[in-house]
């Protein structure tokens, strides 16, 4: 065994000192600097990428990053200053080209430089917090080239001039524009904006201000709008071709403001070509253009809507108050429908089905239709005309269309209960004279009214139809059980339930003997099966068909009213009758009798009677004869007048009075209903609630409601609160 100390095997660090060549950084930098020169001089092909990279790498590794970086900055700056000079020297049109070319060159160079210096970019730059190479290159370009005093303004002016000439119709090089603007964008977000965009918008504003002023002096509205539209399209085109997309909304705003917003009212109100003219002449294209353009600016559509609304209201008001128009109710309503159609089309097409316009149209119609208190009556007369003859032969779908249009007008009415009253009267006449074009159409309209207003509105109307049907069955039963009556006059009776039909005062007259006997037979027959009922003959509502033979043997069938029948039958037993004799025999009330005799003796083509003297009016001393010379081309002559017509002044007053009377119990019912559920309510709220509840039938007059409230207080349905006199309480 040995006692030797064990020696550890040691490896010592390499202590060989490497002494750096003191010129190393300068030498290496020189290589790189030269390389940069070559790159800028388009001589990069002769360079070795690997060698340069390695040199840069080594510099950074040996802690000469600083030197490298500052060298880079200096070198690039020198080059860029040269470049700036050569750009400045460029003349006229080649200025932009030169700038563009040098920019491209710079980018290529920068790319290569960055590749070479990539190691520095990744290590030295971040740790020393320096700007990375690429960005540095852009910044230096910006500082030395773009911001150069000679270039800066010239660049801007050149760009603006080119745009201006393009606006005035010249063709420019869009490619270069695109490149330049892209360059600005690449140089930083605010560069594009400050060096170009904000000036661009200002100059454009001035341009368009001048142009719009010029146009508005010499163009009409339609033309102006076309021009404005064209300019807007041009700008959009411009942006898409050579500007930053973000600029679009800014330039749009400028054009919209200058060309549209500043002249909005002037355009709308332009004489002979403004909005109102466009509406009147159905200028769809112009209207559509106005809509699309004005939509872009604040309140643009609002202004259009306002003017449209006031125009519709004004012309509607004129329509409904023009006495000429009011002479023919059917025409009047047709005009209303035509107006509605016209504006529906306008709103549908050029106005893009805009709901706010639709609403404005509706409120305008509601406004002026209700200006004329006869509107409900006229609409009912229109319906009457359609159902009586207007819809004859029309197919089912078209009938529905017409009825729907009527319903649309109906909805605008505030006094729907007035309409109901007239509709009932007119329907009664149609049913009783058998003059309805289509049962289906009648029923269809009732269904529509029911949908709109509820069951109560139409229950009585439906009752009328039921009565007609029932009467048919009754007549069948009558004739079945009286076979002996086959030879005599044919009687047709309609039994009307009093509550359902419009109230008439029943004035009877003396019927001819053969008829009254028949009527009695019917009465006993009917009461035999319906005990406890009372029948009263409504002789002012019936009609008859008479076969007549005149002096020269001419035979005719005369369709007359019951009254007229009574008068004519008298002449079976006498050749001459005085007014007084007729009056006595028939007991027809004087005003009705006079009208009746007028229609028999004084209407050309229907004068089956002759009157002496031949004066225009029927007076007490007149005498009547059968007109032996009566002739008509038709075999069947219609003389009866049971057609619904526009009411005379006194009739109108009477109807309105009845409507007012009918409203009172409805108001009271509403008050009681509301108070019962609320137990107590203050005055104003009560009036508001009542009005709301009755809205679907008529517009409640607050004074009338107040009177009803007082009446209810008087009858102990309500009381005032002791402490608050405006509060009402329900008394159970």
């Amino acid at each position, binding site marked *: 065994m040995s006692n030797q100390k064990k020696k550890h095997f040691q490896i010592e660090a390499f202590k060989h000192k490497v002494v750096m060549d003191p010129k190393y950084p300068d030498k290496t930098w020189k290589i790189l600097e030269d390389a940069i020169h070559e790159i800028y001089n388009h001589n990069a092909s002769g360079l070795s990428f690997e060698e340069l990279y390695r040199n840069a790498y080594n510099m950074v590794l040996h802690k000469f990053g600083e030197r490298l970086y500052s060298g880079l900055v200096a070198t690039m700056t020198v080059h860029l200053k040269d470049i700036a000079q050569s750009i400045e020297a460029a003349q006229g049109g080649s200025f932009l080209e030169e700038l563009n070319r040098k920019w491209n060159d710079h980018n290529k160079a920068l790319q290569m430089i960055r590749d070479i210096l990539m190691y520095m970019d990744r290590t030295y730059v971040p740790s020393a917090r320096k700007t990375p190479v690429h960005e540095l290159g852009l910044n230096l370009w910006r500082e030395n080239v773009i911001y150069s005093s000679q270039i800066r303004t010239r660049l801007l002016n050149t760009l603006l001039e080119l745009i201006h000439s393009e606006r005035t119709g010249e063709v420019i090089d869009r490619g270069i524009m695109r490149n330049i603007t892209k360059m600005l964008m690449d140089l930083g977000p605010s560069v594009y904006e400050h060096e170009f965009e904000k000036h661009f918008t200002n100059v454009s504003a001035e341009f368009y201000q001048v142009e719009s002023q010029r146009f508005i002096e010499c163009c009409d509205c339609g033309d102006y709008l076309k021009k404005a539209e064209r300019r807007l399209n041009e700008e959009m085109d411009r942006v898409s071709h050579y500007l930053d997309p973000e600029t679009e909304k800014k330039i749009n705003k400028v054009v919209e403001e200058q060309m549209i917003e500043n002249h909005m009212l002037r355009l709308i109100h332009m004489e002979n070509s403004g909005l109102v003219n466009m509406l009147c002449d159905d200028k769809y294209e112009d209207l559509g253009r106005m809509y699309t353009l004005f939509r872009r600016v604040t309140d643009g559509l609002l202004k259009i809507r306002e003017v449209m609304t006031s125009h519709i209201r004004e012309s509607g008001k004129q329509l409904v108050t023009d006495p000429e128009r009011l002479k023919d109710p059917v025409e009047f309503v047709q005009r209303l429908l035509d107006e509605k159609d016209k504006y529906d089309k306008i709103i549908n097409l050029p106005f893009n089905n805009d709901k706010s316009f639709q609403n404005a149209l509706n409120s305008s119609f509601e406004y002026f239709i209700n200006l004329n208190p006869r509107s409900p009556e006229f609409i009912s007369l229109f319906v009457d005309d359609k159902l009586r003859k207007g819809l004859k032969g029309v197919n089912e779908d078209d009938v529905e269309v017409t009825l729907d249009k009527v319903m649309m007008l109906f909805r605008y009415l505030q006094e729907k209960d007035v309409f109901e009253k007239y509709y009932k009267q007119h329907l009664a006449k149609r049913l009783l004279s058998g003059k309805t074009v289509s049962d289906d159409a009648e029923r269809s309209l009732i269904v529509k009214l029911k949908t709109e207003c509820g069951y109560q509105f139409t229950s009585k109307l439906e009752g009328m139809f039921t009565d007609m049907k029932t009467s048919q069955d009754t007549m069948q039963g009558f004739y079945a059980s009286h076979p002996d009556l086959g030879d005599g006059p044919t009687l047709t009776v309609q039994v009307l339930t009093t509550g359902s039909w419009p109230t008439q005062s029943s004035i009877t007259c003396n019927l001819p003997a053969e008829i009254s006997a028949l009527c009695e037979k019917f009465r006993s027959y009917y009461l035999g099966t319906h005990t406890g009922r009372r029948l009263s003959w409504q002789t002012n509502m019936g009609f008859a068909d008479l076969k007549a033979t005149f002096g020269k043997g001419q035979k005719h069938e005369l369709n007359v009213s019951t009254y007229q029948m009574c008068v004519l039958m008298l002449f079976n037993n006498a050749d001459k009758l005085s007014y007084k004799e007729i009056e006595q025999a028939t007991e027809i009330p004087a005003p009705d009798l006079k009208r009746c005799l007028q229609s028999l003796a004084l209407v050309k083509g229907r004068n089956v009677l002759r009157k002496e003297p031949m004066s225009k009016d029927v007076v007490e001393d007149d005498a009547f004869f059968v007109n032996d010379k009566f002739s008509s081309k038709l075999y069947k002559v219609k003389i009866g007048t049971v057609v619904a017509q526009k009411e005379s002044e006194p009739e109108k007053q009477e109807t309105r009075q009845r409507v007012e009377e009918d409203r009172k119990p409805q108001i009271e019912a509403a008050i009681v209903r509301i108070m019962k559920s609320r137990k107590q309510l203050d005055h104003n709220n009560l009036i508001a609630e009542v009005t709301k509840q009755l809205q679907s039938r008529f517009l409640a007059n607050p004074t009338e409601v107040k009177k009803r409230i*007082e009446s209810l207080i*008087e009858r102990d349905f309500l009381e005032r609160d002791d402490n608050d006199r405006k509060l009402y309480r329900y008394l159970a």
Partner: protein
Amino acid sequence: MIFADGITLLCNDIQVDPQDIVMLVLSWHMKAGTMCEFSKKEFTEGLQSLGIDSLDKFREKIPSMRSELKDEQKFREIYNFAFGWAKEKGQKSLALDTAIGMWQLLFAEKQWPLVDHWCQFLQARHNKAISRDTWSQLLEFAKTVSSNLSDYDAEGAWPYLIDEFVDYLKENGVNQHGQINDSSLN
């Protein structure tokens, strides 16, 4: 039952004019059902509640009864009582002439400047009986609305008749002092 003759005698004894408004106050205390008559019950209980057991005491009580009219609350009660008292038995409303007479009596005390115009208006435009609601609301109107109508509220739930009265006044140009300018009303 004491009827009109008896009342005349009574008035003689207490030295009060039968038309004097204090008779109304007395009736109110007695809770009399109808004017110009007192039932035995009404009379005796009324006097009892007033603490009157002799003619002298009665006469002494008169001034204090009169002064009750100056009390707001009591005046209102008396006023509203007057409606039921003055109207015909079995009628719901008060005949116009009676109402006018009562108003003139009551408002002579209360000094409502428009009372004459009101009566004229009713005779010219209304000519029908007065409902209880109108009667009681009139007092409120007289108390709360100034006589130049500057604070009249059209939405104030006043009875319709009062609204019409206001229109009538405006039509006829009531000036600030409540004088009507229309001379045709004489």
